[in-house]
């Protein structure tokens, strides 16, 4: 198998005394687009945050390109859920995107012309360049999402984590994200996406991890995205499972 971008071994996380993730193993080969799916409360976001060191693990190990996250931070870009911030914050689109360079800039240094150019370039990639000077509270949900994507793009990472980028976005934004994912893959990057829409999994991604506190399955979509695994992940709440695995006949999956 190719080089591993992420190796998660025996990861266990608990809030107070309730386990959120239980003994999770997950390998992500470099250069793949991986979806993480599972019902609400399955620990999808927590898994990403644990890999990024934002949530403390009770047990287990996480390696990013063979080393700890702290050592490999410069290789990683992060797109949080857009609902995690206050969009009424007094700042412009360009300013938010430049924040992606803050880590590389280090202490005390101010963003300058180089950062500005990089930010404008990233905004162009997500079709948001005309909005560079716009106050962020004036953006639609989809536009907010694209700003967050641009902010991660200027990190110029090898490995990207995206938390529900498709959540509640318009068709334009969905298309922009899909195009972006494909561009990232052809550039040899690895992308891990928390995803909700089971129907588009086979179309958008080549690997999938199915999660419900425990890891149910993880591997190439063609092998593990099966009726049996879906049933285990969603606890029998998935209707019309016969379509699982190809997802191209237009069947609606109802998830609980």
């Amino acid at each position: 198998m190719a080089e591993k971008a992420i190796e998660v071994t025996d990861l266990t996380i608990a809030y107070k005394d309730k386990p959120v993730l239980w003994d999770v193993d997950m390998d992500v080969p470099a250069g793949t687009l991986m979806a993480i799916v599972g019902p609400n409360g399955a620990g999808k976001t927590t898994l990403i945050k644990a890999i990024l060191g934002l949530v403390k693990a009770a047990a287990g190990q996480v390696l990013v390109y063979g080393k700890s996250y702290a050592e490999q931070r410069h290789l990683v870009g992060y797109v949080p859920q857009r609902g995690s911030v206050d969009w009424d914050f007094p700042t412009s689109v360009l300013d938010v995107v430049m924040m992606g360079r803050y880590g590389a800039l280090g202490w005390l240094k101010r963003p300058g012309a180089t950062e500005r150019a990089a930010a404008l370039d990233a905004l162009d990639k997500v079709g948001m360049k005309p909005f560079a000077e716009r106050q962020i509270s004036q953006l639609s949900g989809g536009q907010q999402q694209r700003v967050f994507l641009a902010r991660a793009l200027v990190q110029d990472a090898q490995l990207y984590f995206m938390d529900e980028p498709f959540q509640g976005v318009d068709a334009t934004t969905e298309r922009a994200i899909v195009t972006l994912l494909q561009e990232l893959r052809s550039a040899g990057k690895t992308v891990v996406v928390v995803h909700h829409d089971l129907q588009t999994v086979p179309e958008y991604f080549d690997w999938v991890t199915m999660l419900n506190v425990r890891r149910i399955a993880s591997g190439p979509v063609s092998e593990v995205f099966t009726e049996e695994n879906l049933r285990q992940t969603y606890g029998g709440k998935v209707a019309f499972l016969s379509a699982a695995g190809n997802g191209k006949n237009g069947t609606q999956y109802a998830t609980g």
Partner: protein
Amino acid sequence: MDISQLLYDLFFDYTLRTVGLGAAILGIVSGMLGSFAVLRKQSLLGDAISHAALPGIVLAFLLTRTREPAVLMLGALIAGWIGTLFMLTITRTTRIKYDSALGLVLSVFFGLGLMLLTFTQKLPDATQAGLDKFLFGQAATLLQRDVITMGLIGAMALGLLVAFWKEFKLLTFDPEYAASLGFPVRVLDVLLTTLLVIAIVIGLQTVGVVLMSAMIVAPAAAARQWTDRLSLMVVLGGLFGALAGVGGTLISSSAERLPTGPVIVLCVSTIVLISMLFATNRGLLWNWIRSQQNRRKLRARAVLADLNTLAMQHPDQEHGHSVSVLRAMSTNPDGVSYALSQLKERGHAREVAHEVWALTDEGLAEASKNLENKRE
């Protein structure tokens, strides 16, 4: 006392100059750091900190038996800081929520402070006199030495704010993302909160523990109304704070027995009120004007559509329709005349006879275009 005399004294009278300078420093520091507190949804943290500072002030006096402001400020600083740490520990380790923790710390510390204050006032010696001025503030007690201390500490706090501007901005907007980039978020959080404690302590002698939180929240809230840029908001916050500080001090010093704190707070409240009402972009007045303009525009469109509907029932475009029919069709009959005059101005409609209107060619084109857009 007339205003020119007051302004003259502000520059040449020793007491007034000292007091004015002190109030300006406290306004600038609390307005600028308060902007961050407000954006971080920590407005009430300032209230808890300033109340928590009271026992520190009294204890500092009891231990040293001096009323040296620097000593008392140090006591306030330590107590305010301990109060903050208590609050953070309570929210992190128990199931008590942030707002309840705030209330707990505020009331427990303030109660302790009041108790100590009462105890101190019963002491036989007279050195404790004036300690209760810390409740509502007394600008007249400021000496040049105190102002210099305030200025130095304030400059240090603002220096740190500028030095870590980028980090504080990121921390305020998106702390989790900041952590993912490798910034020590916990340390930055403690540092920024410490700066807030400093800003509060600087103002305690002048404004008092009860109302100091207004100096944190109000200038920032007013500044937010005027701008969508963080840097400008922080500068404006400082400016508004200074304005209220100096204005309040002047007013309270022009009359006998007027406590400084409440007067300064009234000044800053006036600034907030004006900003809420008249600020461009976010102010209520502007919002109202904008919504009126939109409403007129929509009303003109509606009348145009009504005229079009009527015209479709007559093969002859010259055929006029009376205003009373249009009024009957409109949801807002009173606006019809104004809408018609607007349509006339744009050349979309013309008055063929008194109170009888018809579409022009341009009006017809415009109406069908609107209809087309609506269908899409």
